């Protein structure tokens, strides 16, 4: 009852001082907007990375000579490793009871041409037909190659969205003939556009059957493997089995680390997150400064407001207002300003982040988490910076307040 009346008193006070309320609001809006822009953009990046990595599939892991290197030294050290060969495929297929599929993949760079359009050094991957079951490649149109086509060394190619864009602008690529290092291939399918991190090949890439690859480029001497465990729950054990098989095949002494990398989406994500953690913290920290400045604006204005309304406070106290009534009245004022500023800041921050993300071809959806975070932050600012002026008002001595000029 009383709380409702105090709330109304606060609203009236804010309306009576439109310019002042507006300026305070502006301070909060700027602060919340900058934080929300950064937080939303970072969240969008995170979602995009996770979506890209979800191509791995939840029960799939990769085995590679060099999976990831976070520094030059690490990379050069890993360059000394022996390659993974086709022999490992059959060993894992036989020895790993928890692996359902082992899909080898060989990569090379080649010159790809369609009519007058030619691209150098496009990544060509030779994969078996089941690669498309192990790694979750999204189909845009057409189809993948079949086991029969693999067996019969058919010259068919499945191309990435980037490559399609580069070669076939405004042309339906299905059934068209391209050449890879001079050899003719028929395009049978295209991949869906992936996120900004998925297609890290500027020119795009193409998948061709493994046997066709061997025919043109020779039996691959170095490959990587995509392995699918029988279930998501068995992923860890399947990785351990595979690790033991490869260690014994490659004669790694028991006291030495693996001389190959095993990666899952989670491992990659952890590494990326670890690498970007400082950057993210710094961005959030820097944007928070404007939020603190906004809070100080609120506090400053509230202090002025309390001083200016000393007499009003004295009148209210003489009429029976208790400390908590005065406290709530002023706290409602600062909370209302910061929450209103917060709501506007959330909207503006989201739009700004969406604009940023659009620049790198990414979409951003509003998230409940970001909105609640924004509201919590702005409410917190209102409470934190509003409590001192409100307490100062509540504790005023009624006699002194009444005689204040």
């Amino acid at each position: 009852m009383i709380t409702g009346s105090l709330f109304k008193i606060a609203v009236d006070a804010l309306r009576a001082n439109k310019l002042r309320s507006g300026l305070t609001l502006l301070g909060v809006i700027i602060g919340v907007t900058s934080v929300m822009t950064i937080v939303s953009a970072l969240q969008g990046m995170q979602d995009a990375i996770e979506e890209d990595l979800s191509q791995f599939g939840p029960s799939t892991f990769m085995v590679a000579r060099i999976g990831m290197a976070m520094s030059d030294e690490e990379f050069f050290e890993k360059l000394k490793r022996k390659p993974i060969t086709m022999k490992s495929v059959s060993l894992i297929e036989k020895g790993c009871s928890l692996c359902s599929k082992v899909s080898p993949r060989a990569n090379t760079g080649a010159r790809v041409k369609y009519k007058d359009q030619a691209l150098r050094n496009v990544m060509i991957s030779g994969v078996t037909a089941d690669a498309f079951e192990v790694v979750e490649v999204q189909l845009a149109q057409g189809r993948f190659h079949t086991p029969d086509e693999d067996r019969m060394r058919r010259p068919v190619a499945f191309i990435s969205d980037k490559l399609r864009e580069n070669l076939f602008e405004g042309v339906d690529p299905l059934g068209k003939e391209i050449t890879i290092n001079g050899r003719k291939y028929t395009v049978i399918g295209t991949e869906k556009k992936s996120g900004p991190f998925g297609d890290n090949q500027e020119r795009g890439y193409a998948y061709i059957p493994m046997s066709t690859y061997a025919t043109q480029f020779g039996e691959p001497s170095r490959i990587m493997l995509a392995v699918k465990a029988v279930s998501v729950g068995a992923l860890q054990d399947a990785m351990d089995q595979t690790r033991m098989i490869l260690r014994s095949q490659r004669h790694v002494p028991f006291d030495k680390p693996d001389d190959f990398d095993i990666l899952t989406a989670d491992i990659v994500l952890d590494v990326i997150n670890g690498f970007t953690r400082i950057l993210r913290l710094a961005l959030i920290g820097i944007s928070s400064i404007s939020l603190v400045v906004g809070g100080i604006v609120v506090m400053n204005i509230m202090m002025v407001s309390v001083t200016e309304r000393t007499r009003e406070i004295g009148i209210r106290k003489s009429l029976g207002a208790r400390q908590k009534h005065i406290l709530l009245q002023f706290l409602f004022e600062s909370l209302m300003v910061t929450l209103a500023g917060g709501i506007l800041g959330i909207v503006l921050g989201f739009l700004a982040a969406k604009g940023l993300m659009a620049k790198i071809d990414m979409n951003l959806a509003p998230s409940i988490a970001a909105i609640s975070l924004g509201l919590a932050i702005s409410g917190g600012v209102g409470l934190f910076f509003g409590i001192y002026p409100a307490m100062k008002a509540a504790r005023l001595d009624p006699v002194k307040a009444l005689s204040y000029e």
Partner: protein
Amino acid sequence: MTLIETSDLWKTYQMGAETIHALRGVSIQIQKGEYVAIMGPSGSGKSTLMNLIGCLDTASKGDYRLNGKLVSGMNDDELAAIRNREIGFVFQTFNLLPRATALHNVELPLIYNGTPARERNEKARLALTKVQLDDRMMHKPSELSGGQRQRVAIARALVNNPSIILADEPTGNLDSKTSEDIMLLFDHLYNQGNTIITVTHERDIANHAHRVLSILDGQIASDQAGARQKALTH
């Protein structure tokens, strides 16, 4: 029935190195239904006494009982509750909220004791009608004359049916004609059974009361029947 009872009330201020005794052992009793004027020159301690009686301030020493309750020693919030229920203030400078309507100003004491909005509105309207301002309810103080403002303040003082109406130089900012109107209003309220205490330095104003307490240098100098009391012999 004794409404106000103070015994040996002291109020001491520290002004730098100097100690100022604003009140030096004031002991008074005021009965329910009395009309008392507290008189004295400025600096005599009459405002300090009014602040203590009005529960705006607490004494440095001595006891104060209001309606049998020991007020000295109460904390800030308890005093606020007493002010809300027991005391209706009328100030020299009116002390109305400038941005609020007369009606809202009168509603204020009811807000702080949690009276529901509708009842609040009815009571405030009734109080404003009692002071003949029923046609000015939605006016802001700046749209009212000095006398009208003071009548809004009186309506606000009355709205909670307090035990005491405490008026501090209620006519200090009014011309003599309007002052007389306001004092007639106090007379009327007194005749209806309200307990009224006015603090003033003007003999004319004090003459409306039936009892005059003179205060000098922080002590009660005299306690006499007022001029009107003598004339009318109630």
